[in-house]
């Protein structure tokens, strides 16, 4: 059963310099119990996408097109009050800066209880009990509920936030880089907890990170974003064996792994596109080693490239050649000189 | 080497440049007219090529300069207020012009020294015969008018108001205005409410006669405490708490007390009280009266109701100034007080026409009439209301909250009341009394160019006396003139026959200077006559 269906979503930010197209034409689906990981470079629109689902976009941001169908209803069309009732109860969020997401002047317990009371008829006592329950689920002592945020370590705060998100058994958890600021040891533990709880509760999860190894460990599906668009979507297993999009290929090259033995890292030259401009072709065109004129004029749509595998590239068929070439340093060096050259011409 | 060329050749032939002059003037908020007049004089003198500037100076700083050891000043503006005791000419003739007082610290801050004048000033002081004394005073005025040791700019008028719908029979005295010692005693209430409400814009601070410093404190204290002699509205000394006095000789005076006087606590007033009080004031060095008490040599009780004062030297103002001022204190209270100077005296007990009721600092003093007093008083008492600023008084007058003001209205308010916009001041009667005090520009006669009499005379032609009176005082006051110290309002002592320099005529000033040998150099700067 489909829990969430995002269709042709466009999100704009109004800025002093003009309109910034943070998300353009993004579509994806999420099944009950499925966890999907969003990865991509900084500024590619991951947070924007997450926030749009909860309709938490900043004042200057707006959904200009598209539908977000959650349990059969289009969230875009819902009123403020209706959205408010869905938030936390149905869709809960663990935000990017969990560290600062707790109000410093209230105890952690109060803040969890407050969330519960906003959506149920529970008494304060019951809510407190529930808070204790979720605290124990994520491995914190109940007495910690009385702590103020500043009395807790980063890892504990992060867990408290997760506990908060779980307190009403939401259908969907949106976790925006919940572990980025944490140590590996702590991160590891929290990831494990998230994973086990999500499986246990059978909620769906949208997990945002820039660390593909994290996705590989905890998500069923991976979505690679670039410049406000989805470049590739696949089940994690398939993706890590056989990424198809040139950008994904580049990412894999650039990612050092603790298991690797002396393979040389190759980065993707260039920078992400300026979303302020009106971009017509493929978003990755500037940095793509395999581009053609077609790529420059036409944005490829997300296409089926196998079971559970969607790719937005005009040349899916050539992926084998691409994969081979992508492992070579020269391929990417060529891009670098190309970019420099283009700049010079532009200047 | 070589010759220094100062200017065209004939400059060298001339006298010295007139030194640069600083007039220490009042600050505008302290005395606007003085301030303005000093500025005017500066402009006039600048036109005549004198290097001069005005320096508005804080009053305390001014006094420091005038009375300090250094005597470092050229000219200044200041004034003498017209307190009633100053109707006696001694203060203005002797204190401020006698050469004895011309040293640092003395009141003769003009450093005026004229032996002929000194002789007259001494003579009037010691002459107990009033007519002869008047003759001396007249002559002294003549000399001052010729020598112009200072230039009197103006005298203020005491413009005050009272509520004519509620009271009549008020007394208006030069130098004192409406709230004098007679008005509360004689005023006649026209309505059932027989409490007189007096407005003041000056604070009362203490009711201790030994600590009182302001005129306003005294104006109230002298109604609570009685005095041996009071000055009548015509400024004649009349025995009050005394039945009379005998001038035994030039230095011995007997005072005969009344025998029907009681303090407010019921205790009889005796000669002991009088002797005690005078000795207390002398002993305690009460600054306010120090100069009046200085001549007293001895005080004796000669019989039950007679006190004999022995003087060190003949002192003509003894009755008019000394006896009219010292309040009689109850010995039985004061002898038990450790430090009378610092005593709070929160419930003053006197023997005067009014009995103290209540005093709240900064707000009001309430007194009721002494029904057992030897004179009949028609009101039931009065409230002395202290206002923070004249603005408040004006509002209170509009609201009929006040029956009388005790200070001189500021010109802006005089106009407002006169215009009587909308008839809101219909109930008020405005009174005017000339002040015997005066404001003047004084000079340091020890310094050039003020040591030059002609220069001073020329200066007196540079002062626009009409401007001061008509523009700055709005007409409420009287004109000044060179060397004028006894005001026409002081009818008895004023010598109308003396011609004084009191016209504004810059051309004439120039002529006088030229005649006196002053010259202008090629830069237009005024130079002193060549020796």
């Amino acid at each position, binding site marked *: 059963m489909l829990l969430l269906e995002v269709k042709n979503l466009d999100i704009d930010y109004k800025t002093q310099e003009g309109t910034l197209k943070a998300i353009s034409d993004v579509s994806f689906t999420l099944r009950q119990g499925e966890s999907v990981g969003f990865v991509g470079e900084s500024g590619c629109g991951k947070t924007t996408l997450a926030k749009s689902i909860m309709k938490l976009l900043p004042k200057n941001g707006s959904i200009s097109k598209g539908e977000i169908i959650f349990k059969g209803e289009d969230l875009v069309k819902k009123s403020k009050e209706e959205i408010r009732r869905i938030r936390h109860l149905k869709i809960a969020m663990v935000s990017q800066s969990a560290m600062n997401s707790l109000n410093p002047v209230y105890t952690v317990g109060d803040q969890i209880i407050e969330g519960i009371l906003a959506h149920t008829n529970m008494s304060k006592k019951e809510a407190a009990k529930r808070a204790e329950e979720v605290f124990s689920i994520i491995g914190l002592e109940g007495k910690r509920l009385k702590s103020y945020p500043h009395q807790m370590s980063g890892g504990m705060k992060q867990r408290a936030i997760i506990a908060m998100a779980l307190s009403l058994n939401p259908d969907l958890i949106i976790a925006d880089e919940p572990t980025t600021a944490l140590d590996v040891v702590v991160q590891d533990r929290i990831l494990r907890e998230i994973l086990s709880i999500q499986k246990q509760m059978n909620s769906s999860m949208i997990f945002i990170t820039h660390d593909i190894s994290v996705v590989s460990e905890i998500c069923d599906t991976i979505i690679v974003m670039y410049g406000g668009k989805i470049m590739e979507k696949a089940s994690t297993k398939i993706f890590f064996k056989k990424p198809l999009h040139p950008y994904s290929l580049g990412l894999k090259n650039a990612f050092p792994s603790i298991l690797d033995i002396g393979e040389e890292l190759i980065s993707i030259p260039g920078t992400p596109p300026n979303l302020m401009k009106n971009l017509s072709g493929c978003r990755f065109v500037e940095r793509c080693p395999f581009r053609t004129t077609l790529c420059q004029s036409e944005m490829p749509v997300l296409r089926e490239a196998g079971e559970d595998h969607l790719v937005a590239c005009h040349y899916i068929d050539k992926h084998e050649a691409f994969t081979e070439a992508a492992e070579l340093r020269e391929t990417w060096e060529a891009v670098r000189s190309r970019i420099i050259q283009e700049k010079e011409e532009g200047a | 080497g070589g010759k220094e060329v100062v200017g065209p050749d004939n400059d060298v032939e001339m006298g010295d440049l007139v030194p640069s002059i600083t007039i220490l003037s009042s*600050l505008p908020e302290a005395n*606007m007219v003085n301030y303005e007049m000093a*500025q005017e004089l500066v402009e006039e003198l600048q036109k005549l090529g004198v290097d001069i500037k005005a320096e508005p100076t804080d009053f305390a700083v001014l006094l420091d300069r005038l009375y300090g050891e250094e005597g470092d000043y050229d000219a200044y503006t200041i004034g003498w207020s017209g307190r009633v005791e100053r109707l006696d000419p001694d203060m203005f003739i002797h204190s401020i012009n006698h050469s004895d007082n011309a040293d640092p610290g003395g009141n003769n801050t003009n450093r005026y020294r004229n032996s002929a004048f000194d002789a007259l000033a001494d003579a009037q002081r010691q002459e107990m015969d009033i007519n002869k004394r008047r003759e001396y005073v007249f002559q002294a005025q003549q000399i001052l008018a010729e020598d112009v040791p200072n230039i009197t700019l103006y005298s203020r008028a005491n413009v005050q108001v009272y509520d004519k719908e509620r009271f009549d029979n008020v007394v208006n005295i030069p130098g004192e205005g409406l709230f004098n010692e007679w008005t509360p005693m004689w005023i006649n209430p026209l309505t059932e409410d027989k409490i007189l409400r007096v407005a003041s814009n000056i604070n009362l601070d203490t009711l201790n006669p030994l600590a009182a410093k302001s005129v306003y404190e005294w104006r109230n204290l002298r109604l609570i405490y009685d005095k041996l002699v009071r000055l009548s509205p015509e400024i004649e000394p009349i025995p009050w708490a005394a039945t009379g006095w005998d001038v035994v000789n030039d230095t011995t005076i007997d005072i005969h007390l009344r025998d029907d006087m009681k303090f407010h606590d019921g205790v009889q007033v005796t000669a002991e009280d009088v002797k005690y009080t005078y000795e207390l004031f002398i002993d305690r060095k009460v600054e306010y009266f120090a100069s009046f008490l200085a001549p007293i040599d001895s005080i004796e009780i000669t019989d039950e109701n007679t006190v004999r004062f022995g003087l060190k030297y003949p002192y003509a103002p003894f009755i008019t100034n000394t006896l009219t001022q010292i309040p009689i204190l109850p010995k039985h209270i004061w002898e038990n007080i450790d430090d009378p100077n610092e005593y709070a005296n929160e419930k003053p007990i006197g023997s005067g026409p009014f009995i103290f009721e209540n005093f709240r600092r900064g707000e009001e003093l309430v007194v009721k009439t002494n029904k057992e007093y030897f004179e009949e008083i028609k009101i039931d008492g009065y409230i002395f209301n202290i206002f923070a600023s004249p603005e408040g008084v004006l509002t209170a007058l509009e609201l009929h909250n006040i029956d009388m003001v005790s200070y001189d209205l500021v010109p802006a308010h005089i106009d*407002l009341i006169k215009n009587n916009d909308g008839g809101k001041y219909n109930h008020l009667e405005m009174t005017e009394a000339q002040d015997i005090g005066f404001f003047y520009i004084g000079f340091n006669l020890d310094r050039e160019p003020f040591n030059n009499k002609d220069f001073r005379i020329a200066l007196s032609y540079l002062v626009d006396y009409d401007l001061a009176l008509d523009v700055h005082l709005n007409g409420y006051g009287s004109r000044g003139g060179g060397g004028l110290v006894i005001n026409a309002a002081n009818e008895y002592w004023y010598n109308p026959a003396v011609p004084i320099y009191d016209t504004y005529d810059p051309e004439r000033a120039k002529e006088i200077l030229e005649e006196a040998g002053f010259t202008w150099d090629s830069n237009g700067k005024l130079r002193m006559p060549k020796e």
Partner: protein
Amino acid sequence: MSKTVVSTSIKSFFTSKKNSQGFFPVFINNLKRDKLALIGVILLIFFIGVGIFADFIAPYEPRERHYNEEGKIRRLEAPSKDHWFGTTDVGRDIFSQVVLGTKTALTVGILAALLVTLVGATVGIIAGYSGGVVDAVLMRIVDFFYAIPFIPFVIILSAVLKPSIWNIILAVSLLSWRTVARLVRSQVLSIAKRPFIKAAKVAGASHSRIMVKYILPNVIPLILLEMAFMVNFAIMAEASIAFLGFGDPQKPSWGQILHINFVTGNSRSAWWWTATPGLAIVLLLLSIFFITRALEEVVDPRLRRR
């Protein structure tokens, strides 16, 4: 302690990627959008013009008395063709006085602000950068000045010194550098922690070089902003002191005009005499406040409208 909102948030000016553009371009850009700031600039230019050319603009000598055809003094006349702002109780032209007062206000404002920011910024930079004992000592001095109530102190100081605008400037400066010092210090503290300062140290830059070449340019926007506040503060202080009667009576200033108006008992009847100098103060200060608002947006990008 007194954290001005400005100081706490300034840090982000430099850290934010988009806003590291120059100070003035952003400001000018702001002017285009912010009408109030534009009004402020225009008004300020107007006042500065009036201040510079005051002697030409003022139609009369400020002390000149005016008489009517019958030779009577034009006492307390309401505004008219001849006297735009009316006359005083001795027939003086209030318009001329107000115009000349502009000069005084601007002189005091600008000089005091310069002095204050100079001292305050120097102390702030030295304290913030040096840290340790120097910082502690300087900050105790700042604390000391914070404990002194402003107006009463300036009253006393102007009474001790002779009444003159120079002494008012001195008095204002003596007490106000503390604010600038503290704000600058806190900003310097945060700048000094930033890696580019560390990098400079690693490169071997001397302390003075770091202070002058690295820290100073980065606190200049804040200093400019504070300077604008100080101009206002000083003008207000001068007016207040003069109004209380501690000003220089021979120097026409707005506070002085109001003081004379008040002490001569005309503040309740001659509205034109009370209103005009006050309005001048309001307009001048308002113009600078409008400008500081735009400046503030430059210094603190979070205040900017997107």
